[in-house]
């Protein structure tokens, strides 16, 4: 069957523009309809994608800006096929949340438009097969979040939103120079016109010096976006001020774009940089794991617990990627999907907890919420166990593979990192026990999930369980592409700069 990626890419924005012109309730439902159609399309793509063949499929290739050599090239690969599905799922859940729960949201048309723009931006970053196009979408997807926080955010949103936006755009702007330099410098090596296509860039590797600084620039942008220690300064403010459905998407999806960026851009294009700075990146990941976990079990703000747990989880993902071997990267790839699936519903749970504890999002005001809410407790428990990577969950497989890869490459770092698994259990269970059990909080009124809550949360939980039962889907789909992206790195590791070009060609043809 023919699948046009342009449709799936621009459908959310189109729905958003239609919603902008419509009155209140209608705008919410149009937005939901758009998200549902994208979800259906993404599901079709995930099923139809030929995992046996791997590589780029459903390629759309047009020239966008002839004078700059920028192409509008989209494709699905084994790396992004499940991340696209994850994006579609979380945005659908967020739209459902707004349609069913936030019915008194002011300016619903503008909200729907911005969410549509955000989804198109994220999908574009995943689908882009041109470095310049990737940078465009990477920056673009931030813009709607700026406005979403600015208009619908918490009471102290003013300074927070500026901090968030400036932090992340600083990374993106540096990345812009890196991307342009990659394209222009590769032109000299390849002797053709400037081209930013990943396939062209990979065929003309840069010199060692250029690779190193450009790699650092990209790594910085991705680490800020994740966020990773010590570039997480924007995270507490951003997490506390964003409205719930916006935060759910932000936490679940945007950090994954950064992880995906490492796999799609940093490893294949700058293998020398990746090898050179492997230890630096692994140490930063380790610091993120330890710092994130420690902060997550010492703060009492539920949103911040989830925020810092993201820092730790993203640390694991980065650790897996920079193990620079098949197991580590495979693990990082499934863990990216896992964390997205878990993070979004947990953010929704925050809102439910706050609604039951007198509006407070502080653990000290909670406790005993499970008392009259067995279904809520069950759903929350599944999420908690997934978050702490209980054996049997797909997160367990992800973390296991990541640590396996890390053990193979840097034993000492992996040993320390494995304590992060234990710490995850501490903060996840602390969150669950202190909110749901323990002494009943002063203003706590326990009540069951409403039907609307159930519509949002239960399917997400089922998705987690389903993925836990069959994680091979993502593993199998990603396998070939991971190997192709790792081929340049492997060539650098095993000496022979001369072999590099040959290895790249082999990798690309595989």
């Amino acid at each position, binding site marked *: 069957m023919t699948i046009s990626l342009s449709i799936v890419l621009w459908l959310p924005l189109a729905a958003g523009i239609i919603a902008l012109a419509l009155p209140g309730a209608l705008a919410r439902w149009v937005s939901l309809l758009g998200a549902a159609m994208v979800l259906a399309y993404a599901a079709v793509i995930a099923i139809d994608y030929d995992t046996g063949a791997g590589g780029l499929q459903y390629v759309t290739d047009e020239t966008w800006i002839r*004078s700059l050599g920028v192409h509008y090239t989209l494709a699905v690969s084994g790396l992004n096929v499940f991340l696209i599905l994850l994006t579609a799922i979380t945005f659908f859940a967020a739209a459902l949340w707004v349609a069913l729960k936030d019915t008194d949201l002011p300016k619903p048309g503008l909200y729907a438009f911005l969410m549509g723009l955000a989804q198109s931006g994220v999908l574009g970053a995943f689908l882009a097969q041109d470095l310049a196009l990737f940078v465009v979408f990477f920056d*673009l997807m931030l*813009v709607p979040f700026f406005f979403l926080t600015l208009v619908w955010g918490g009471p102290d949103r003013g300074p927070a939103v*500026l901090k968030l936006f400036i932090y992340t*755009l*600083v990374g993106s*702007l540096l990345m812009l*120079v890196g991307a342009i*330099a990659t394209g222009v410098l590769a032109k000299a090596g390849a002797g053709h016109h400037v081209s930013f296509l990943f396939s062209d860039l990979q065929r003309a590797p840069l010199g060692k010096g250029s690779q190193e600084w450009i790699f650092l620039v990209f790594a910085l942008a991705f680490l800020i976006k994740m966020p990773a220690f010590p570039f997480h300064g924007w995270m507490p403010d951003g997490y506390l001020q964003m409205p719930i459905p916006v935060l759910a998407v932000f936490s679940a999806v945007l950090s994954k774009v950064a992880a995906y960026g490492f796999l799609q851009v940093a490893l294949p294009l700058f293998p020398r940089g990746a090898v050179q700075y492997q230890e630096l990146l692994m140490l930063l990941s380790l610091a993120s794991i330890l710092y994130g976990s420690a902060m997550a079990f010492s703060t009492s703000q539920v949103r911040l617990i989830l925020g810092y747990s993201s820092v730790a989880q993203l640390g694991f993902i980065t650790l897996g990627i920079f193990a620079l071997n098949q197991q580590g990267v495979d693990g990082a790839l499934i863990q990216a999907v896992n964390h997205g699936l878990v993070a979004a519903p947990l953010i929704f749970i925050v809102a439910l907890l706050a609604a039951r504890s007198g509006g407070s999002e502080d653990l000290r005001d909670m406790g005993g919420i499970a008392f009259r809410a067995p279904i809520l407790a069950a759903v929350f428990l599944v999420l908690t166990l997934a978050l702490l990577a209980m054996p049997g969950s797909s997160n367990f497989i992800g973390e296991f593979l990541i640590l396996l890869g890390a053990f193979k490459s840097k034993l000492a770092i992996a040993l320390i990192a494995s304590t992060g698994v234990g710490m995850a259990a501490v903060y996840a269970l602390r969150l669950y026990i202190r909110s749901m059990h323990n002494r009943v909080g002063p203003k706590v009124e326990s009540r069951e999930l409403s039907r609307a809550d159930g519509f949002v949360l239960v399917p997400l939980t089922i998705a987690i369980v389903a993925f836990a039962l069959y994680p091979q889907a993502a593993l199998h789909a990603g396998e070939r592409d991971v190997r192709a992206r790792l081929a340049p790195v492997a060539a650098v590791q095993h000496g022979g700069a001369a072999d590099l070009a040959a290895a790249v060609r082999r990798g690309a043809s595989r």
Partner: protein
Amino acid sequence: MTSVLATAKGPYVDWAALSPLLALLGASLIVLVAGLLGARGAREQGVPLLTLVGFGVAIGCTIWQWDTQKNVISRGMSIDRLSLLAVLLVSVAGIVGTLLAWRSRAAKEIAHGEFFSLLLVSAAGMVVLAAAENLITTFVGLELLSLPLYILCASRMRSERSLEAGLKYLIIGSVGSATMLYGFALIYGATGATDYAGIASAAAKAGFNDDVMFLTGVGLSIVGLAFKSSLAPFHQWTPDVYEGAPTPVTAYMSVATKVAAFAATIRLLDVALGGAFADWKPLWEAIAVASILVGNVGALGQTSLKRMLAYSSIAQAGYLLVGFIVGTAGGVEAVMYYLAVYLFANLAAFSVVIARERETDREDDIAALRGLGTSSPVLAGVMTLAMLSLAGIPATAGFIGKFNLISSAVDGGETWLGIVIVIGSMISLAYYLPVIATMWAGGDPAPARSREDPRTGLPVLAGASPEADELSIEEPLDGIRAAGIEVTVIAAILGVATLVFGIVPQPLFDLVDGAARSLGLS
């Protein structure tokens, strides 16, 4: 009889090639006379309309002559793609400036005929400057553009700030002109030529690297040009003049002057003195870095939107310099591209400032924008796009412009200047974004203009128009309480242009294509 005619034949004038310039000069005369008509309607509506027609005819002639490439007036000017592009950009800025000034108080106080006539003369001066291929023509063009602007800056005759801006601009601008003229004299002394081609061949032949007179001449010319393009450290006049001048004049001046000054700088430095350019590169690099830093840091914490935009224009001029320093065809075209993009975004921002100046009594204070996202989503949307474009965020034309500039910098082996641009952009986020935040974050909107206007009732000045006396104390600043439909429409058009050229940039690339090749750059 025929033999007499043959001997009396005057010098050949290529009227067709000069037609865009003649259209502007002719229109300025017609407008000046039309301003003397008795009927008030003819003065207040007819004169701006004729001005628009004048700019329109100039654009028409430009399109007609688009493929012309020849030297005219004894090699004094070159009508080529670069100068025609400058005519196009200046005329667009002129049209926007006319529409913004249509119902402004400035045009009423100084009388419509004079105001719009001066606007057209300054545009003609910009065209001469952009096309000049001779030191004398360059200077004539420069003064032809500057003198009307000095007057226009002071055209709000009852506003002390406007008069102060005019005076300041006159004094500092004259110092700049004098410096440049001195530099030109020294260049002439060293090379014995005033036309650029002659200077270039003399410089190539003698290799003036150690000639103190030549180098001093070039140095002084650079300082003069830096004064005119408001580049640091010769920028001090900019914030005061931008803030004090009537806002439509500021809007027009901020973009049109830059177009002409950069076209002239490219012609003089990249082409005529291209051979000796390596000697001057460090100086230009220092000016570019200083402008980017001073402009961006100076704009932080400004509460007056006009001052903020003034500092931002210094920074933007610094970005433009990068393309010029690279000096390749790609660099020059990137400069022209960025000028076009900057024109849309900056004029859009000024349109919104004017609309708010008329609707509230907060003048150009950033507080005038509060709650605009709710009260007037169109204007707020335009301002948002303008700020995002100036900051260089994707999906706006400014992003493509910056991409293009950085790309040319990397291609020309000046990657570090690309990084300086990006560092400047990072700083700029800290003042562009709060403007957006003010509009969308809610809060009480700025109150509508009250009846009382403290700034009227100043003494009437000699030379003011008949209408100036009629502007009674009760009448608000611009005689209207609404932004005016033409301001909203022009703002919307500029905002849409900023968005569309950010998504479909190729037409703009096709427009600037060839601007550098017409100069012989590769």
